[in-house]
């Protein structure tokens, strides 16, 4: 009852100074809006990284050659220049590792894809037929190449949508057509379903897939592998599979216990968690910056409340002369501060949500508005009001009625 009256009093006091109340709110509005926008951009990019990585196959295991020996000058050799992975490793993994359901060698080469007058710089992946399953790729048109074609180093390929668009701008059916990659002619036997960009902005459709033997012999003239792709039987078994693969490769590479691995095994799950923790860190950082503006907003409230207490000293005196207690005055000013911050908070939440929606629709950034972000900034807001409103309010409450009335 009494509190309800005080809320009414505070509300009326704010109404008498709408513009000032709004300007005070502005700091809070911007602070909360920024926090929510930052958090939704952060949360959105985190989720998009996760979904894009798991769309590549959450069971996927990638094995890369890796020389841990530092090069002179401290640099490390790039992975493709290290020649430690062989076809023999692939076969051993296929036959011995129970937790692996599919495995494929991988070699890659960049070069120009040419069809008639059309040129397109792209990347060729030399792999086994199982690669499509491992990477969760599917064919829109045509057929996958076969193990037989791998054995024969057949000059056949599957092409991604971006390559189709650039080499066949007229819209003719690529299936059966012959394109050249560098100097080597390849017959297109399949077109991949488009996957779009991944989180890192890479076009996943800008790719040509061919039998690894073909790439090894006809393009790279090498017998080594750049990568081995494998698929664990399930996501939960991928750590076990990693263990087994590591053991097996160490034996196969005849490494003594004192020697470091000359390869690295990465699971997609691990990559997801690394990437998300990076993005979480970014989010935290951005949110902290936005949080600072919230604090500044709070200081703005304190400033205005101080001015307001001084300016309304006579009003305080009058209120005391008609029966307001110190605690009534304290609560009135506190409620005013909290109302400013909460109203600012509500507007800030609305602006934050709108900004997130605008960012995702105009810039095509993924955003996810989290309830926790809204809840958190709301609590922070109310606390800001209490914290920064308390001192000015207390100053008002301690005034003597006669001193306040006489104040000029």
């Amino acid at each position, binding site marked *: 009852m009494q509190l309800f009256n005080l809320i009414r009093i505070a509300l009326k006091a704010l109404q*008498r100074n709408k513009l000032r109340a709004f300007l005070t709110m502005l700091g809070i509005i911007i602070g909360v809006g920024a926090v929510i926008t930052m958090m939704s951009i952060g949360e959105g990019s985190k989720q998009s990284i996760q979904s894009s990585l798991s769309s590549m196959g959450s069971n996927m295991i990638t094995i890369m050659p890796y020389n841990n020996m530092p090069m002179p000058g401290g640099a490390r050799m790039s992975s493709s220049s290290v020649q430690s992975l062989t076809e023999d490793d692939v076969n051993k993994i296929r036959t011995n590792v129970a937790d692996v359901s599919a495995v494929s060698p991988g070699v890659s080469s960049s070069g120009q894809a040419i069809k008639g007058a059309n040129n397109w710089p792209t990347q060729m992946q030399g792999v086994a037929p199982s690669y499509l399953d491992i990477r969760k790729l599917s064919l829109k048109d045509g057929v996958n190449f076969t193990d037989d074609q791998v054995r024969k180093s057949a000059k056949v390929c599957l092409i991604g949508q971006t390559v189709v668009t650039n080499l066949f701008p007229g819209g003719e059916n690529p299936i059966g057509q012959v394109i050249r990659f560098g100097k080597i002619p390849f017959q297109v036997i399949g077109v991949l379903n488009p996957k779009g960009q991944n989180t890192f902005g890479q076009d996943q459709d800008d790719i040509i897939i061919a039998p690894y033997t073909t790439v090894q012999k006809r393009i790279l003239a090498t017998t080594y592998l750049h990568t081995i792709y494998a698929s664990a039987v399930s996501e939960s078994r991928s750590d076990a599979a990693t263990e087994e693969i590591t053991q097996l490769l160490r034996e196969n590479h005849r490494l003594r216990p004192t020697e470091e691995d000359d390869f690295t095994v990465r699971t997609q799950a691990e990559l997801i968690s690394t990437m998300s923790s990076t993005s979480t860190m970014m989010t935290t950082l951005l949110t902290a910056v936005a949080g600072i503006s919230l604090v500044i907003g709070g200081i703005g409230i304190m400033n205005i409340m101080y001015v307001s207490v001084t300016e309304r000293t006579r009003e305080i005196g009058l209120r005391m002369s008609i029966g307001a207690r110190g605690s009534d005055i304290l609560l009135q000013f506190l409620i005013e501060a909290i109302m400013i911050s909460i109203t600012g908070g509500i507007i800030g939440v609305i602006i934050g949500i709108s900004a997130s929606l605008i960012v995702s629709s105009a810039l095509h950034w993924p955003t996810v508005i989290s309830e926790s972000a809204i809840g958190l900034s709301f609590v922070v807001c109310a606390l800001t009001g209490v914290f920064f409103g308390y001192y000015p309010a207390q100053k008002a409450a301690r005034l003597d009625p*006669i001193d306040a009335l006489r104040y000029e």
Partner: protein
Amino acid sequence: MKKNILEVRELKREFLVGSQVVRALKGVSFSVQPGEFVTIMGSSGSGKSTMLNILGCLDKPTEGDYLLDGVNVKELSRNELAQLRNRKIGFVFQAYNLLPRTSALENVELPLLYNADVNTRERREKAMHALELVKLADRFDHTPAQLSGGQQQRVAIARALVNEPVMILADEATGNLDTRTSYEIMSLVQELNQKEKKTIVFVTHEPDIAAFSSRTIMLRDGKIQKDTANENVRSAKEALESLPVSDDY
């Protein structure tokens, strides 16, 4: 004999200005009975406001006792004093002290907002009733800026009345008003005294205002110079009627 509504004994009030002690009241004693209409007169600086502020529990005496309705104010806490101001005293200021940009009705409601016993509906009714008493019910939604000085003072009087206090204290309540408006206010005050039986202590330095009261206490230099009953109280209503018509607004 009736019980005193207020009684002051050897009241002293000193102010410390820098290193100098200003003695505003130098030992004042008097008592007021319910239903009295007392004016406190005296030249500027004689201690009238200081006296009234103490009577209104806005200020405390340096020495001496003040008994309000039999209670020694000295023994009350800050919150108890606030309650006392809320329930027993209606204060009217020279400068009206209305909240700006706030309707007359809301200004009058203000003391009731600090009274937990009054609900929203009662508050509205009481405030409306108080405005009727000061004959401003038709202006209830006007803000102070939309009212004349006399009307603003009437709103202030309604505000002082609304909590049904036992006494009304006014400090030069007509000080800012012209003669006609002053008489209107005085006629209202007389009516409150006679019809509503309110005890009134009215500070003024104008003798013609004091003529409307039943008793005048003359202050001089912080002491009572004279305390006289007024045998033939002048009627403010009649005084108003006898004013030349050209003075009309």
